[in-house]
Structures are given as structure tokens and as C-alpha cells.
């Protein structure tokens, strides 16, 4: 269904890429012009994405704004785009954050501005592409394409000392998972062919496939590794602190705000509905990893000395919540997971912006180098406080809604998980507030900190626009929850239906087999 009769998703996806092309053709020296171009393009993209939100039919279960053009016919690849409630918010998050990033790096990035803006816009193309593709092949392409600009952002504009290491680690780590996924996609594709006789990468068609559980287990595992790395879940997380720490501010922002969501989105869009039996099998494992992630991330970030690293580890903790929620496999958990993806994007994105702002002023990210900033920069302190609280999950701000729904969902499916996960709430307060205290409170001990400028209007504007959503989701989350509800409900019914069907099929198969065995024995 495409209620707009416009290829709006294509527009959204490729507008930034075209913009990047224009920037490429523009004069390298006209830095201001390039910045404005990037801003205009990203803003235009954001504006283009608004119709998605307003024209989205919240009660329609299928895909919306669908575009489908055959691409590689004989092998069943299609250019198939469409969104539902699950992806809607993530797309908006992406289009929302890109202009913010453009503005945020206005003064920050002074060298190679042209290339920087190109990377940023190409990254946006990749990110949106991932969220709108409904064809596995297309999805995989966007999934990989997105790596390159991010890799360059980290590696070129990152922190000179270790940027290369971080960039390569990011790239290889992610690639490792996605390559396994590639094999799984191929297996799925050929399995589908062997069953239905049709070559297709169409996700909606592949949803209808009931695979034997052994297949599901392995394929799910392959997808799992890809997504778990992206999320990142507990033992696969070590690329994240490095990438975050070394990336330039907006790199970290986009990484946190959008890129990490791809893993969780992937679970929801691919991992779970394709392999329901395996999903059920792996719920304990994944939940436990998620819980370890929650607690581990929190504990480790508590003792970090570097602000960005701290926030990075806190992402591990927060994303643990999201994964836990998704694998609660009930509506609260998944709704919470989705909204928490947005929340984490907003609050952690904002946190990285904030860290970037003081980094820009002081050129250090070490907590020990700060202290007493609240006195010097009161406006900054206020923003920082609110974002910190949002990250902690203070009721009334966005974080709480997600966390509570997740915990509730988890509690319904498994009490023990919920109890352990809920301890994360305590730890979050500990490490965030301690960090806040060390940076903002106390006396100004360092001479350099005494004359720091408070936020400029530009910076206030950036943070305020994020804050609007932080409050909005906290106070009236219905705006967003209602958009996703139908899709999630539909997702769950389909999921359960398919699960039952798979199990039933398996049983029949067993019965068949045993009866055959009996026959042959006789």
C-alpha cells in the first residue's frame, strides 16, 4: 500500500546521496557553502520524512508506502521498499538526527569539510535504506554500504591517536557478523527455492516459509551474530567503546542514535519473524546475554575515566534492555523495545553531543580534567542534567516509558530476568550521576575550565530540539506508541501463528517418520 502515490521512500533514501553528489561537485574551498548545502539537504530530507508520520495509517497491518520494482528478475531480487510501525520511528529518528549532526559539526569539523558532509549524507542514505528495505538482498546492500561512510568518519576525522585502530575494528567486527548473515541469507533463499520453487528475496514471502527447527537454529544463529555485533550485545561489544571514543562527535552521535538500532531492528524485522522456533529456543540465551550486558555495561561504565567511553558502555547497558524487551515476545516488551530504541537514540545521541561540546572547548574527554562546570556553564549544566536523567530513566522523561514497558514485558514472560534487569535501573543511576557529579559539580579545579563559554545559540538549538522529544515521549508517548501498536500486534500474531505452524509441522514430520520407521521394521 502506498497512500501517497509517490516514491517517497526512494526519495528519502536517495536524496542525501544525490546531495552528496552535488557536494562532491562543489568547490572544496567554499566551506560555508558546503555546510549550508548539507544542512539544506538534510533538512529537506527531514521534511520529506514528515509525511510518513502524518500519513501513516496506524491501524493498517501491512507495509505502507510500498514501492516494488523488479531488479534482478531471474534471481528474484526486487527493489522493494516499505515501512510499518516498527521502522517508521527509526526512519524519523534518522532523518531527525542527520540535520542535527550537520549543525553540530558546524564549527567542530574544519578540515576536509566537503568529504565529511558527503560521508554524513551517504551514511544517511545507508541508514534509511536499511530501515526501508523489504528485500533481503537490498537490505544487505544497504547494511554493508553504510559501513563505509561510518568507517571513514571514524578513521579520517576521529581522534588521531587510535582512530585507525577503532575504524578498522569497527569495520571488521561488523563485517564479520554480516558475512555470516550473508551465508544465512543465501541458505534461506535456496531453501525457499527448494520448497516453493521460487527464487525470491522478498521478505514478506520468506516470512511465510516454515523451516524445520534445525535449519532455523543455524540460520538464526548466523543472523544473531550479525545483529548482536551491531547492537552490540555483551560478548560482542568491544568494538563499540573504541569506535565511540575515537569517532568525531557526530560520528558517535549517529553511531549511537541510529546505527546501533540496526541490530535490534534486525532482530525484529528478520531474526525473529523468519525463525520463530529458533527464536523461542534462543530466548534464554539472548535474554541472559542481554541481562549480562545491562549489568556489565553499567558496572564497567561506572569506572570509566573517559566520558565518551562511559557513554559508550552505557549504550551496551541500554541496548541490553532493548534486546531483552524484544525477546520478551509480548506486546509490552516489544513496544517498549521499539520506543526504547528511539529513547536511546535521543538521550545517548544528546549525551554524545554534550560530550562533544565540552570536548570542543577543552579538547579532552577525561573526567578528571573537569569538575565544577555547572558553575561556569549553567545552561549547559541544565541540558546535561536533563539528558542524564533521561538516560537514567526518570519517569516523566522518555527513558522511563521504554524501560518500564520492557521490564513489564519481561516480567510477564520471565520474572527472574526482569528482577535482574531491573537492577540495571539502580546501576544506571550510580554511574550516570557519579559521572555528572565529577564533571559538573565540585569546585572548578582546573584553570582552563574557569573561563569556558556557555552554550551558543546553535548548541542550545540542537539540544533543545532533542529535548522536545525527550519530554514528549516521556509525557505523551501515545503519539508514538499508537503508531507502532498495530504493527507490533500484527507481528506477534503472525509470529505465534508461524511458531505454531512450525511446531505442528515438526510434530507431523516426527509422526510420519516414526510411522515410517515402524512400517519398515515390520
Amino acid at each position, binding site marked *: 500500500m502506498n497512500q501517497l502515490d509517490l516514491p517517497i521512500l526512494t526519495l528519502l533514501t536517495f536524496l542525501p546521496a544525490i546531495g552528496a553528489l552535488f557536494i562532491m561537485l562543489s568547490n572544496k574551498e567554499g566551506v560555508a557553502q558546503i555546510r549550508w548545502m548539507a544542512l539544506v539537504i538534510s533538512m529537506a530530507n527531514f521534511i520529506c520524512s514528515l509525511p510518513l508520520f502524518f500519513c501513516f495509517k496506524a491501524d493498517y497491518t501491512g507495509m505502507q508506502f510500498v514501492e516494488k520494482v523488479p531488479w534482478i528478475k531471474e534471481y528474484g531480487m526486487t527493489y522493494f521498499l516499505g515501512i510499518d510501525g516498527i521502522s517508521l520511528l527509526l526512519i524519523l529518528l534518522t532523518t531527525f538526527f542527520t540535520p542535527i549532526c550537520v549543525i553540530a559539526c558546524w564549527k567542530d569539523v574544519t578540515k576536509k569539510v566537503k568529504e565529511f558532509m558527503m560521508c554524513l549524507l551517504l551514511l544517511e542514505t545507508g541508514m534509511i535504506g536499511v530501515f526501508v528495505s523489504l528485500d533481503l538482498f537490498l537490505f544487505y546492500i544497504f547494511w554493508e554500504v553504510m559501513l563505509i561512510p561510518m568507517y571513514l568518519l571514524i578513521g579520517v576525522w576521529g581522534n588521531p591517536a587510535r582512530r585507525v585502530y577503532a575504524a578498522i*575494528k569497527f569495520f*571488521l*567486527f561488523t563485517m564479520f557478523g554480516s558475512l555470516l548473515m550473508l551465508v544465512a541469507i543465501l541458505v534461506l533463499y535456496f531453501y525457499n527455492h527448494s520448497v516453493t520453487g521460487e527464487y525470491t528475496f522478498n521478505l514478506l514471502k520468506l516470512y511465510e516459509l516454515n523451516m524445520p527447527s534445525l535449519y532455523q537454529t543455524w540460520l538464526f544463529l548466523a543472523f544473531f551474530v550479525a545483529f548482536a555485533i551491531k547492537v552490540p550485545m555483551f*560478548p560482542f*561489544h*568491544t*568494538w563499540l567503546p573504541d569506535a565511540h571514543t575515537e569517532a568525531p562527535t557526530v560520528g558517535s552521535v549517529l553511531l549511537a542514535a541510529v546505527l546501533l538500532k540496526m541490530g535490534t531492528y534486525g532482530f525484529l524485522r528478520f531474526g525473529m519473524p523468519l525463525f520463530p522456533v529458533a527464536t523461542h529456543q534462543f530466548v534464554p540465551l539472548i535474554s541472559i546475554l542481554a541481562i549480562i550486558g545491562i549489568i*556489565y555495561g553499567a*558496572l*564497567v561504565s*561506572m*569506572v*570509566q575515566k573517559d566520558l565518551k567511553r562511559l557513554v559508550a558502555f552505557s549504550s551496551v547497558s541500554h541496548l541490553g534492555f532493548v534486546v531483552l524487551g524484544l525477546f520478551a515476545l*509480548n*506486546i*509490552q516488551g516489544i*513496544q*517498549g523495545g521499539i520506543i526504547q530504541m528511539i529513547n536511546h537514540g535521543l538521550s545517548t545521541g544528546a549525551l554524545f553531543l554534550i560530550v562533544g561540546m565540552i570536548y570542543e572547548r577543552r579538547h579532552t574527554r577525561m573526567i578528571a580534567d573537569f569538575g*565544577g562546570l*555547572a*558553575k561556569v556553564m549553567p545552561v549547559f549544566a*541544565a541540558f546535561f542534567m536533563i539528558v542524564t*536523567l533521561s538516560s537514567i530513566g*526518570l*519517569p*516523566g522523561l522518555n527513558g*522511563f*516509558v521504554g524501560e*518500564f*514497558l520492557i*521490564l*513489564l514485558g519481561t*516480567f*510477564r514472560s520471565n*520474572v527472574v530476568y*526482569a*528482577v535482574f534487569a*531491573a*537492577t540495571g*535501573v*539502580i546501576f544506571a*543511576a*550510580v554511574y550516570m*550521576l*557519579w559521572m555528572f*557529579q565529577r564533571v*559538573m*559539580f*565540585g*569546585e572548578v579545579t582546573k584553570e582552563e575550565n574557569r573561563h569556558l563559554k556557555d552554550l551558543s545559540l546553535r548548541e542550545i538549538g540542537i539540544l533543545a530540539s532533542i529535548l522536545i522529544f525527550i519530554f514528549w515521549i516521556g*509525557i*505523551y*508517548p*501515545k503519539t508514538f*506508541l*499508537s503508531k507502532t*501498536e498495530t504493527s*507490533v*500486534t500484527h507481528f506477534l500474531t503472525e509470529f505465534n501463528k508461524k511458531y505454531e505452524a512450525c511446531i505442528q509441522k515438526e510434530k507431523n514430520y516426527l509422526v510420519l517418520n516414526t510411522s515410517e520407521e515402524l512400517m519398515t521394521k515390520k
Partner: protein
Amino acid sequence: MLDYVWLVPLFPAIGFLINGLFGYRLSKGFVGVLACTVIGLSFLTSVLIFFDLLQLPPESRSFEKIIYTWIPAGDFKTSVGFLVDPLSIIMMLTVSGVSFLIHIYSVGYMHEDEGFKRYFTYLNLFVFSMLLLVSANNFLLMFVGWEGVGLCSYLLIGFWYERKAPADAGKKAFVVNRIGDFGFLLAMMLIFVTFGTLNFHGVFGAAHHNNEVSTLVMTTITLLLFLGATGKSAQIPLYTWLPDAMEGPTPVSALIHAATMVTAGVYMVARCSVLYTLAPVSLTVVAIVGVATAVFTASMALAANDIKRVLAYSTISQLGYMFLACGVGAFSAGIFHLMTHAFFKALLFLGAGSVMHAMAGELDMRKMGALKPHMPKTYWTFLIATLAIAGIFPFAGFFSKDEILWHAFEKNTILWALGAGAALMTSFYMFRAVFMTFHGESRVDAEVKKHLHESPSVMTTPLIILAILSAIGGFVGIPIIKGANVFHDFLAPVTGGHVAGSVEVTLGNLAYASSSALSHGEAVQHHVGLEIFMMAVSLVIAFGGLGLAYLMYLKDPSLPRRLKEKFKLLYHLILNKWFVDEIYDFLFVNPIKRGSTVLWQFFDAKVIDGIVNGSGWCVKWTSSVLKRIQTGYVQNYALSILVGAVAIIFYFLLV
């Protein structure tokens, strides 16, 4: 007016927003006036609502106003909505009333402070959260207020963030509260899973009618809720943050850490009385924890020299009383004590603030003495409050405290005995404080002495009003006389009627009055004589404390020192707050910190990242080894071809 209940929290919210967003452009005077006005308006609205509520027959005094659906997710739906019933209106009145007075007081107290505007912003936010907490119609919204007040407490304790101690204290308060919230969160989930809703009406109605819910679940729910309450209301084992919270401005201590926020736990337990009565084990736990806290923290107050710390321990101790009341099933008694305590403890803190104001911020009672002539208004109001807290007839504390002790006695003599002991200590340390501060010899520094003065009227007026309330506030709940206990009658629809005389009114009218409570109430009726006796005992205890304090601090000032010598160990323990903070540090804080460091620097950096980097390193190493095969000698290459050929031939020959 009932329909406009949402105005009650809205006014402070407006004040908060205006002060927070535009405060930096407004004048100090305007900010102060605005802050007070909005709270005043809240109070007014509450009063109007109160009278509206009184118009209704007792059985229908429960009104829900739903504003909008807050979090919808499948079968889970929570709304932003308000509940007006006797319990919440009492809380609203108390909160907005006391807050109003303290706001006014603060205008004077904080006048010189740099963070004046910030202070009022926070304070408005606090009142908003607190009112939200008490007026919410469901657990989740209550939790919003619950965390909101915690946040404000954090912000206000750490108000003077440039010093380390307040900042630390603020963080500690927040984190410890979070531990409690952990329980609250889990309780909410369990409630939802059990009853399918978080709405008070829905939950209590279901709990009352649905007998299928096992006691175990009930007990778990209530214990988890109580964990939340121990955090917020500073009970064992989570009380440690409250003494530290005294680092905040004194009006804050008065408002948040004495009168309102810390009582949220009691309010919550009272609100959930239906659940608690269905879980006897929990009630017992509540009672034991309450009384233990009362005694334990009272003991700490005995030797404290910091006037605010004395008051802080006293607060914890009094909160323990309230929980004791709830624990023995006398929820309305708990609320009653909550209310009177709000009056006199706020007064005490404000008095202490006034003293500090005069003493240039000095808190150590050893450096005070004989302040009475310098600040008469402060002295007299402080004395009234002390009398009230000590439980001397006819001040407010007498009625409420006595009622609790009586109910405790009804339930269990040991509880009563401990409660009585705590009362003795209360009386002792409060009078000790009065004597050390206002009487005796002056130990004030010469420099400070010159500036000793009575506080301005903007500060003393609230003192006087509170003093009046502390003096007469108890009369709304006169025990014994049938029908005269207006307070309990009023509350009975919510908390269940336990008290003689009110039982008939409540019987059968209420959907969720607990039946077990009723039977309890009937039993009580026969003991009027006993009750009078108990009152007498209470009075004796109160005067005993007074006398002891007089003996030690006025009559024979050397006595304390001798006692110190004699019970060195005990004194040391008490002085150092039984080393509880240190024990916590040792048991939890330090291991976690150290463990985390190990996790990070060893496990994360060495093990996990080691595996990642190690595999990369392995490939590189293999690479550098394998490339040596490439010797550059053409004959080696030929040999390699030959080896390959031979291998292939033999592969075909053998396979």
C-alpha cells in the same frame, strides 16, 4: 471543584516552568513571589476540593479524574489521572500547606543565596512531584511523582554543588532511593501481572474481591512495595541517605526530608492498606522494620552534636513510628502522625534554620547555648514543636504518637515496649537539643555573638503558623471519645476503620475496606480504660525524657562527659552512627567499584578484547610466518609445484 483537581499539581508545574525557563531574566523578588503564589494557589485549590469532598456522603468520597492515556501497550494501559479521596486530600492539604509556609520562609532564608532562582525552581518542581505523588490515581503515575521527588531531593541536597559533601549526599540519596524504586518497579509489575491493571481502584477492588490471589503473591507485592517505602522514607536498611541529606538548605530539610517526601512511603503503604491487610507477614515486617528504625536511629540522635542531624535522626525515628502504625494495621494512625509530624518537624527544622541564620551557618550545638534571649520567637516556636514531638499533652504529637503506641500495644507488647523506648529517647534528645541550643551557658564564638539576631518576619511568620498547628493539630484526632476522632472517620473509607467509634460508619459501605481490619476494630472497643492508662504512661515517658535531658544538660553539664567516659564504646558507636555507612561501603560500595575496575581493565580489556585483538594478531602472525615460504628462489617454487603434483597424483591413487 473536584473536576479541577489537576490544577493542584499544575500550579507548581507552571511556577517551575516559568522560573526554570525565564528565571534568569526575572527579578529575584518576582521569582520568590511567583513561587509562593503558585503553591498558595495549590493550597487554595486543595482546600476548595476538600470542602467539596466533605459535601459528599462518606461512602462516595472518591473521585477519579482522568486526563489522558499515558502509556498504552496492548492490554497495558496507564492513564494520567487523579484520585481525590480522603487520604489524598489530606496529603494534598498537608503538602501544599506546609510547602506554602516553607516557601515563604525560604524567601527570607535564601535571600542572599546566589542560586535563589534555581532554588525556587527546584522547590516548585518538588511540590509538583509531591502533589502528583499523592494525587495520582494509579501506581505508575504515583511512581512518576515518587521519582520526581527523589530527583528534587537530589537536586536540592546537592544545591550547593560546589562543595563535595552536598553533591555526594545528593547522589547517595538518589541512588539509595533507586534501590527502593527497584522494589517499587517490581511490585508494580507483579501487581499488573496479578491484577491486570495499575489503577488503584482496579487493583484494590480486585484484591478485595478476588480471593484467588495467593497470599504469597500478596506478600511479595507488599514487601516489594515496602522496599520502595524504605528507600523513600529512610527505613532500615536504606535510611543512611537521610542524615547526609542535611547538607541541603535547611528549608529543604524541613520540607522534603521531614514534612513531605520522606512520608511518601507511609502514604504509599497506607494507600495500599488493602493489599497489606491481605498479607499479614508483610504487616509484621513493616511493623518490625518500623520499630527497629525508630529505636535504632533514635539512639543515634542521642549523641549527635549537629542540630540538623539530631532532627534528621529524629525524622527517621518518627517515620519508623508511622510504619509501626501501619504495621500494626493502624494506617490512619500512621497518616495522622504523618500530618502532625509534618507540622512539628517542619517547624523544628525551620527553627533550626532560623538559628543557623543567626549563627552564620553554625550547626554544632556545642557552639550554641543561651540563644533564648536573642531570638525569642524562634525559641518559643521551637519549644512548642519539641513539646509536640516529645508527645506532651495537649500538643499534636501526643495524640498521634500515643495512638500508635496504643495500637502497638494492642498488637504486641514488645513492639510497644520498643516504641515506648524510642519515645523516651525522642523526648530526651529533643530536649537536649533545646537545652543545648537555647539554654545554659553561651558557648557562641565572640565574633558570631555580635550578629545574633532574630530572623525577619518573613521567616518567623511561618514558624508561628506552624507552631499553632503543632499545638492544636492533634485535636482533629482525639482518641477515646466516640465520634470525636474526626480524622479517622474521615480516613476510614480508605484505610479501613480500626478505631473505636468509626467502625459503624464505615462498616459495609466500602467496596474495599478490609474485613480483617474490621474484626480488629471490634476488638478494640472494649479497651477504653486501658487506653487512658496508656496515655498516662506515654506522658510519663515523655516527661522522663525531658527530666533526663534537664538533668544532664542544664543541672549537671558534666554528667554527659562522665557518661561518655563510662560507656566509651557505646558512645563511640553511637557517635559514629553504628558505623553503618562504613559497613555498607565495605560490603557493597567498595566491592562493586573494585569489581567493576577488574571487569573493565581485566575482563573487558584483556579477555574479551584480548580475544578479538588476539585473533587479529594471530592472522597477522600467521601471515608474517607464511610469507617467509615465499623465499624468492625459483627452485623452491618449482619444488612447491612438484609437491602439489605429487600430492594430487597420490590423492587420486589412494583415494
